């Protein structure tokens, strides 16, 4: 079972834990309705689409409202370190949360006390926290974009905002940055680098590069990185080995993007709708 931990962009959204439902373009958790237009809810919706297509149970989510002040993230961290003791998830995906090195340490301590360690995935703010706290190697999968890869490669940067100038985001240097991120132990065992080409990496070795189809208009669309992280989380939780899951997730995201026939103004919910079609096409499943 997968649990996703993240935030929604609302001030008055309390800490909620529960199994999610996806109905049209909205998630429901404990009777709260959340738009899937962006952020963690886009990630959860993408995971739901995969689970629905594979006829598996939908995931659980730990959610809180946070508009960037960090108060919501702190409440969620406090809730999570106590609640996780009662659970036995196979996969945990941490997402848009205020990066906080101390809370990352506490969360890993709580997870370390579980009888079976879940597969740990980090993206967005919690990936920043994992790196800045020196805990990157405690995670199983990071899903950075090329700019975030440059941040992982820069051993001094505490946040992508401070990545030093000579680590300019440059996709021609992705391999160099991958090597450097592993050399300084600033990334997870598995890495899915989401860019013009997607790199699937295990322990510093590039296993596969997925570069087709190239959809130029996807880059400006907010949430295309969230969708791929949701897809790969669901595939790993469904039993795919991490390498297969990363390759398949990359292909699903690209194909869903192409099926949506996007332009730079397209919204992520318009692409998420095509995840089932892309997954079925790639797995050779028939439409019902």
């Amino acid at each position, binding site marked *: 079972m997968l649990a996703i931990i993240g*935030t*929604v*962009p609302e001030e008055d959204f309390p800490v909620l834990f529960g199994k999610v439902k996806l109905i049209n373009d909205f998630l429901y958790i404990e009777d709260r309705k959340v738009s899937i*237009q*962006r*952020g*963690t809810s886009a990630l959860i919706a993408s995971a739901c689409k995969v689970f629905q297509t594979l006829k598996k149970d939908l995931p659980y989510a730990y959610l809180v409202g*946070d*508009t*960037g*002040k*960090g108060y*919501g*993230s702190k409440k969620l961290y406090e809730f999570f370190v106590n609640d996780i003791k009662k659970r036995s998830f196979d996969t945990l995906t941490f997402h*848009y*949360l*205020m*990066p*906080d*090195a101390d809370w990352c340490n506490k969360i890993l301590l709580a997870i370390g006390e579980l009888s079976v360690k879940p597969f740990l995935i980090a*993206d*967005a*703010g*919690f*990936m*920043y*926290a994992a790196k*800045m*706290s020196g805990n990157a190697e405690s995670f199983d999968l990071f899903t950075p*974009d090329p*700019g*975030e890869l440059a*941040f992982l490669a820069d051993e*001094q*940067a*505490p*946040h*992508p*905002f*401070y*990545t*030093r*100038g000579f680590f*300019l*985001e440059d996709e021609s240097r992705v391999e160099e940055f991958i090597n450097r991120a592993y050399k300084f132990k600033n990334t997870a065992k598995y890495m899915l680098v989401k860019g013009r080409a997607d790199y699937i990496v295990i322990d510093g070795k590039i296993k596969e590069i997925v570069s087709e189809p190239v959809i*130029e*208009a996807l*880059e*400006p*669309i*907010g*949430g*295309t*990185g969230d969708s791929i992280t949701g897809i790969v989380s669901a595939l790993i939780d469904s039993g795919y080995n991490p390498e297969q899951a990363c390759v398949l997730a990359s292909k699903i995201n690209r194909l869903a993007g192409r099926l949506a026939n996007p*332009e*730079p*103004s*397209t*919204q992520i919910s318009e692409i998420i709708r095509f995840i089932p079609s892309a997954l079925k096409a790639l797995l050779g499943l028939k439409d019902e």
Partner: protein
Amino acid sequence: MRILKKLFKSDKKVENLNRGILLFENTSEVIRAENILKSKGFDIKVIGPPAHVRKGCDLAIEFPIVEAMGILNLLEAQKIEPIDCLPSGDENLKPVDLFNIKDYGRFLMVRAANMKITVDKNSLTIVNISGGGCPDVPYLAACLVGKKLNEVPEPRKLGHTLCGYALQLAYDKIKELCLQS
């Protein structure tokens, strides 16, 4: 002012003492302080705090040390109280300051650090915001996407984190590019 005494008691070399840095409780306070100090013409800049006081998602303000009293008085009057004041040094991190601009014909995208903003050049509507990892990114997108570039509040007035600050830089650049043409 206790905070000033602490600053000048430092045994750092004199050349490092011509600039000081102010640390704040959170990034929102840094952004507020920056707005206030810049509006009064102070020669300040936003930097990364030194490693030994860094939490991760934080900013600090570097300022001319000779103006410390005026700066602290101004901030106090605005009810902003720095939590500390330190000498500046070469080891302080600088925010990234390079932009990546991509023209899609009808649309223009500008990236600053890890944040991207895309605008419809004809209507000046913000059509997408992407990148980043801090929790104000989805909030900023919810507030800004679908609105006119020249009618929305600036990201710095809504955001609270480094990602929000990076979006402000991208916003300033795309506004300059779109409104000049």
